């Protein structure tokens, strides 16, 4: 069996079919509620991809939601206080989060993997209190009535307003596609190979001339930038933010999405995991108040019997047929 460690095996037909289904979904699903779930799932998928990106280099970050929040607050301030366009605020949110990650990461990434985890956990706790204690960020109540993105004006076409779920769905799909293409390119580049080498054995990688610190920092910064961009999207989609949305439990949930799908698949795993984990609780809504209990059991059972995620089932099937 040829071993493909990075990108999922490319099957153009399956890929094309998947894209067509994703684009066509709003035609099939007219319920705003289910579209909302899909939008949230897509956003979570991108966050989960940033987790796998860092995990590839041996870093477990507990501050994904913190950088997501930095992006959300940056974009909100830009559009509400300074009247910037959403389309300017979104990339700026990513850039601010990335610059912040560069400064903080330069300090944190040097540490061994477990210390990094602890330091990012402290960072995550700190971030919530920074958001909550700054009066001009709305305190613990947060900011509401964030305007939706400005309509897209294209020549010769009617403006595309953001007043319906399908519009946001396609915006999410665009950002998700952007992230997938960007990450795929990264994984197949020199940087991706360096990351993989570091993930397998940092010391060995270093001895081959890979600058472990620099490549780890690169993954931290890219992950933060991506999370920041999704934060800008989140703020303008939901229309309200508060510090608790960005706490450490959100990060752990993001971890769970990726692990559930399978972290050995850096793009497909997070995608599958977050769609499953967003939709399954909905199916469990019939169970009403015992829903969290079933969800908790599902986490535990999956970790007991399928610790490598849902996609490892496919892998197993593949191995058997070889």
């Amino acid at each position, binding site marked *: 069996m040829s071993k493909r460690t990075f990108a999922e095996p490319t099957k153009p037909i399956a890929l094309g079919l998947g894209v067509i289904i994703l684009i066509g979904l709003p035609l099939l699903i007219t319920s705003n509620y289910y579209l909302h779930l899909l939008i949230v799932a897509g956003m979570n998928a991108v966050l989960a991809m940033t987790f796998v990106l860092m995990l590839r280099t041996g870093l477990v970050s507990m501050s994904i939601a913190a950088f997501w929040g930095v992006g959300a607050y940056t974009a909100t301030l830009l559009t509400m206080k300074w009247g910037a366009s959403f389309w300017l605020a979104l990339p700026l949110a990513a850039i601010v989060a990335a610059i912040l990650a560069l400064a903080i990461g330069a300090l944190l990434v040097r540490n*061994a993997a477990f210390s990094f985890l602890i330091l990012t956990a402290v960072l995550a706790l*700190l971030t919530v209190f920074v958001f909550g*204690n700054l009066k001009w960020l709305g305190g613990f109540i947060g900011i509401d009535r964030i305007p939706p993105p400005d309509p897209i004006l294209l020549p010769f076409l009617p403006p595309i307003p953001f007043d319906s779920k399908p519009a946001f769905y396609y915006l999410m799909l665009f950002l998700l596609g952007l992230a997938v293409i960007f990450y795929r390119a990264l994984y197949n580049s020199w940087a991706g190979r360096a990351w993989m080498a570091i993930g397998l054995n940092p010391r060995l990688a270093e001895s081959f001339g890979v600058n472990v610190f620099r490549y780890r920092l690169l993954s931290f910064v890219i992950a933060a930038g991506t999370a920041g961009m999704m934060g800008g999207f989140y703020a303008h989609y939901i229309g309200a933010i508060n510090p608790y949305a960005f706490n*450490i439990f959100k990060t752990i*949930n993001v*971890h769970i999405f990726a692990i559930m799908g399978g972290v050995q698949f850096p793009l497909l795993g997070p995608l599958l995991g977050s769609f499953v984990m967003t939709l399954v609780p909905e199916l469990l809504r019939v169970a009403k108040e*015992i829903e969290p*209990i079933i969800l908790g059991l599902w986490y535990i059972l999956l970790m007991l019997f399928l610790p490598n995620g849902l996609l490892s089932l496919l892998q197993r099937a593949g191995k058997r047929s070889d």
Partner: protein
Amino acid sequence: MLTLILQLLLDGMASGLVYVILAAGLVLILSVPRIFLIAYGQFYMIGAYVVWGATVLLELPYLVSLLLATLITALLSMTSYWLIFRHIHAGEKNFLAMIVAAMGLMLILGQAGLLAFGTSSRGMPAIFTGVLSGADLSISVEKVVIMSASVAVTIVLFLLYEKTKIGRAMRAVACNPEAASLQGIDVTALYLVTMGVSGALAGFAGGMIAPAYGINPEMGNHVILTVLLVVMLGGMNSLVGAVVGGIIFGITLSLGQYFVPDLAQIILFTAIGVIILIRPAGLLGSGVSVDV
């Protein structure tokens, strides 16, 4: 001014000592079975609710309820190890799987607590009333009881850990599980005992603060974040670190919230971050290395 500071120190000690118990319990879990048990706060919540239920609904005496809470959380903790973490332990590089399973346990226990005890906050009649005062300082009898009980429990825990045979076994396993098992220590049984002791500590802490501070279903989720910080500050594998960390945390927060209410938490958390950056093992820890 001096009396004010002394008063704030006293108040800080009272809350800090409760963190000490919880942090010590978490340190045991982190260093002996090495589980990143994010669900630990739920044992504290359950302890508080059991005491509330036993005293208010069943009208049992307070001390009996507290004992009951301690026993129930110890059993819960041991059961969760036996049913869940024992199996995940076997694999390698299982840190992430443990976090996910612990998160699942947290959801289950949190929701079970909600279903059993309701969503509203509960108050319960004070057990100890009255205020001690002297030399311009005053402190409620309740807090004095909490403080002395915390100190007593911490001392007992230290005696257990440092002086008894089982404590020595715990230290050996914390140091190197394989070598310890070669010396004839039943590692699984020891993990069970450790989980039981830790669960009991959390239940005791919850039951102890229930009459003084009130109870709500979210208290477990809130306290675990504080306790994690205390443990990181003191050192993940140091009981003395848990004591030092808890007291520093309580006092700093009490002083800070009086003088700079808006910035107290930001300053404290940043300081903890800087300390961990300089000393990744925490103030008194000796650096656990967990494969992540």
